[in-house]
């Protein structure tokens, strides 16, 4: 398989919004999430707390569903999570939310497993009043398999 043309990929896909979703965040799921991560404060673990909210990294968990744009070229290998970043602008409370997702960056580098392609997908999270609560970035790394290599 020939190597992907990364410059063409960048030109075509960076900035492209490919998903917009509305959904409900439930207090019980937020609390269980927090406890599993080791949070101990009532603000994260007790839905009855007056300041109850999700830990900021909860925003990353909302990047489910379509991970890449429809019609995005098939990637030449298994995609693995290379890292995540969250910017928190406001507390994530239970209730209705909306998210918009776009392709934020594409780049390559070499690593322990050969040439790697990095895709950065950014999800912006809003509450039902349109307040921007968080950005959550996911960096997916695809190891480009060398031609004829079984590994």
């Amino acid at each position, binding site marked *: 398989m020939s190597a992907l043309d990364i410059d063409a990929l960048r030109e075509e896909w960076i900035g492209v919004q490919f998903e917009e979703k509305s959904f409900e965040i439930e207090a019980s799921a937020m609390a269980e999430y927090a406890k599993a991560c080791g949070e101990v404060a009532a603000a994260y673990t007790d839905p009855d707390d007056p300041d109850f909210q999700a830990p900021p990294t909860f925003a990353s968990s909302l990047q489910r569903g379509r991970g890449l744009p429809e019609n995005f070229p098939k990637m030449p290998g298994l995609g693995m999570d290379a890292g995540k970043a969250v910017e928190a602008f406001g507390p994530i409370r239970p209730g209705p939310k909306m998210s918009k997702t776009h392709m934020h960056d594409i*780049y*390559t*580098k*070499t*690593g*322990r*497993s*050969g*040439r790697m392609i990095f895709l950065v997908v950014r999800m912006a999270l809003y509450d039902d009043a349109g307040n921007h609560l968080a950005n959550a970035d996911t960096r997916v790394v695809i190891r480009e398999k060398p031609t004829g290599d079984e590994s």
Partner: protein
Amino acid sequence: MILDLHTHSIKSDDGRAKVENYCQWIRTRELPIDGFVLTEHRQFDLDSDYSGLASEFGLTILKGAEVETEYGHVLVFGVTEALMAEFDFGNINLPLARVIEACAAHDAVPVPCHPGRARVGMSAHLEEHGVPEGVKIVEIYNGGSRDNEDQVAQDMASELGYLGIGGSDAHIVSHVGRCATRFDAPITSEQALVEVLKAGEFEAVTYREAI
């Protein structure tokens, strides 16, 4: 003088350390190093001037680069604009021979780094590409090494007669100084570093257990 010869700042795509914070860390934690070299991935940071920080913290702060070749990653010390015109530092498929040739022509020193690491280390490519001409020094202590990667690097250096340096490969502030290189003479410039590397007057050190 002891310098960490392999560090990354926020200028590297996966670097998260600000240079000032490296300086503060070294002084606050009283690390046994006198400075460091910023070896950013696939670029040479021509514009940044760290002389103010160096003076403020009493440290030596130099600049180099980490480039990518068919033999894995290579540190380059003594980068000049003339050297930068010889090959594209951003190319992840540089021929090592080209890097070595260009360094020789422009009084710079190439040092394969983490040579014991899979894929991005030189030892993984010897069988396929052979022993490259012109390598004199490799990194035998790397602060990010896992398993026996440093031992593989040391064994290769011993077998092929290479000298060894040490560097932390720090990408975050708290990892600076884990490995370093001891020099007999003070070093205050990239050119002075090149001279002592060429003269072979250095020794790799590791502080990974201590820091």
